[in-house]
């Protein structure tokens, strides 16, 4: 009896803790009935709040490019390390998890001089943030991909495929990738969610993205800024749900 009461107390406290800000956001952003329809009206939104529109587009582009960059760099590396260089796996794992242990603010201190060069060579466009973001998402993406690889016997599958006549490229594309599809999907979704929520690095490196624009907008038009935050949260939430559905769908098949 006491345990049930305790459980409900905990759940209630946690629920209030998490839901209260969200409820407050919903309440606040619906005070003006014009706010939410505005978000669905892109021409009007970009005309009335040009900075926000730029931020949204910048974030979407950053999310897309970071995801591609992360997949291209990480997936083949993770597979290759497992197949051919099992000895360096602990090192790769350590390197990939390193960004997690460094606070974003410290990361920026290190990134600032690097970005001075980036400015010089590539320019100050907000899309250049993808380099920093690829490093930032590495711990999460690596974990996801590595979990997928652990679930299958990569070495035996690769050897079977090779003895049947496939070269390394075919092994990776036709044998390994299809079997870690849901893991790769998780890595991609996590990347998108993280990039859409990133503020510190963008702000400190004087580049724009969704969160920077929201923060800026908060000073002039609080309702719209809160509504956009909420929409971004919902999007991340939907992504995570899709992710878990993709996971269980894969689980049903195998």
């Amino acid at each position: 009896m006491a345990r049930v009461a305790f459980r409900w107390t905990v759940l209630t406290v946690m629920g209030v803790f998490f839901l209260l800000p969200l409820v407050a956001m919903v309440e606040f952003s619906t005070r003006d009935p014009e706010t939410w329809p505005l978000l669905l009206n892109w021409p009007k939104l970009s005309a009335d709040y040009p900075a926000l529109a730029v931020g949204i587009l910048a974030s979407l582009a950053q999310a897309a490019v970071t995801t591609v960059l992360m997949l291209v760099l990480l997936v083949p590396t993770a597979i290759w390390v497992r197949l051919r260089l099992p000895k360096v796996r602990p090192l790769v794992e350590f390197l990939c998890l390193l960004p997690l242990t460094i606070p974003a603010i410290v990361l920026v201190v290190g990134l600032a001089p690097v970005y001075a060069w980036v400015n010089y060579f590539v320019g100050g466009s907000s899309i250049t943030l993808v380099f920093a973001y690829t490093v930032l998402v590495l711990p999460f993406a690596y974990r996801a991909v590595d979990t997928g690889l652990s679930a299958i016997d990569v070495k035996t599958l690769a050897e079977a495929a090779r003895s049947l006549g496939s070269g390394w490229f075919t092994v990776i594309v036709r044998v390994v990738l299809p079997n870690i599809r849901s893991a790769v999907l998780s890595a991609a979704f996590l990347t998108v969610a993280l990039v859409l929520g990133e503020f510190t690095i963008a702000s400190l490196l004087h580049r724009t993205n969704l969160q920077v624009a929201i923060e800026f907008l908060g000073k002039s038009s609080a309702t719209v800024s809160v509504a956009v935050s909420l929409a971004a949260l919902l999007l991340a939430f939907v992504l995570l749900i899709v992710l878990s559905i993709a996971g269980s769908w894969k689980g049903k098949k195998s």
Partner: protein
Amino acid sequence: MTGVAVHLDGLRRTFGTVHALADLDLSISPGELIALLGPSGCGKTTALRILAGLEEATAGRVLVDGKDITRLPASKRDMGMVFQAYSLFPHLNAQQNVEFGLRLRKRSLKRAAEMLELVGLSGFENRYPNQLSGGQQQRVALARALAIEPQVLLLDEPLSALDAKVRVQLRDEIRRIQTEVGTTTLFVTHDQEEALAIADRVGVMKSGKLEQLAAPAEVYLRPATPFVADFVGISNRLPGVVEGDTVQVLGTKLPLVGTHADGAVTALIRPESIQVSPDPSSSAKVLTSSFLGSLSRVTVTVDDHLVVAQVPSGDLPELTQGTRVRLTISPLAVVVE
């Protein structure tokens, strides 16, 4: 289709200080099935993997059909391999698994169905690996390996994960299919019964080298060395005296395998060549007897020696503990050391 000849020529492979293979020589005739038999860690898998191109030899050559393929990558070698671990592609069903090699070679996919039929799995085409039993998975793996019409078929303990009954059944089936297709085959196992039952010739390995390579009956009846004798199940080590080409053990003269200088030796006698019958006047006594099915095992003490004999279980009631018995040894050639 006829098989090709395979030669392993002075193969050596070291892992740090471990000599997995130490100058292994092995010639396989076209269409022959050779079983590599040996204790764990003697280098069987290493030999097979080098032949498949999945492992590099430290020294030595691999010749297939007269051509040196030592430096050829696995994907170009044209060898079908069945692994000890389940190796079907989890995202493909049985049919697609068998088709995998055919697609890479742009061959007709019709062969996949034929192969599944050959291994007795028609009707299972659409099952995914996780919907198949272990034995069925290994059958699909065999079909997949055979579908590409490989020059050489390599089997690395394909049956070790299966239960005893399925093992015997699938082993006989592998032999039937191999004879039918005629592919030169190397079959690795550490189960002596499996090796003797399936192979044209059995190669017994010890520490990276071949101890003996001969027909199953030869290995069984005339093991070349004490190690081979021990490995094919000869467990009695009895004192004997060599005289010319015979050895006298427990009062019986037996022919000798090979030659040995005259004098006192230890003879290796298999349990099934010793018959036990009650004889009150004998000094030998039954120590223990254990029922094993149609045959049973009896240990007898003779002049401070322990002798293990295999007897028909029907004789067991009269061979209780303490019974005085007479031992007769079948006149088969024995190994001495």
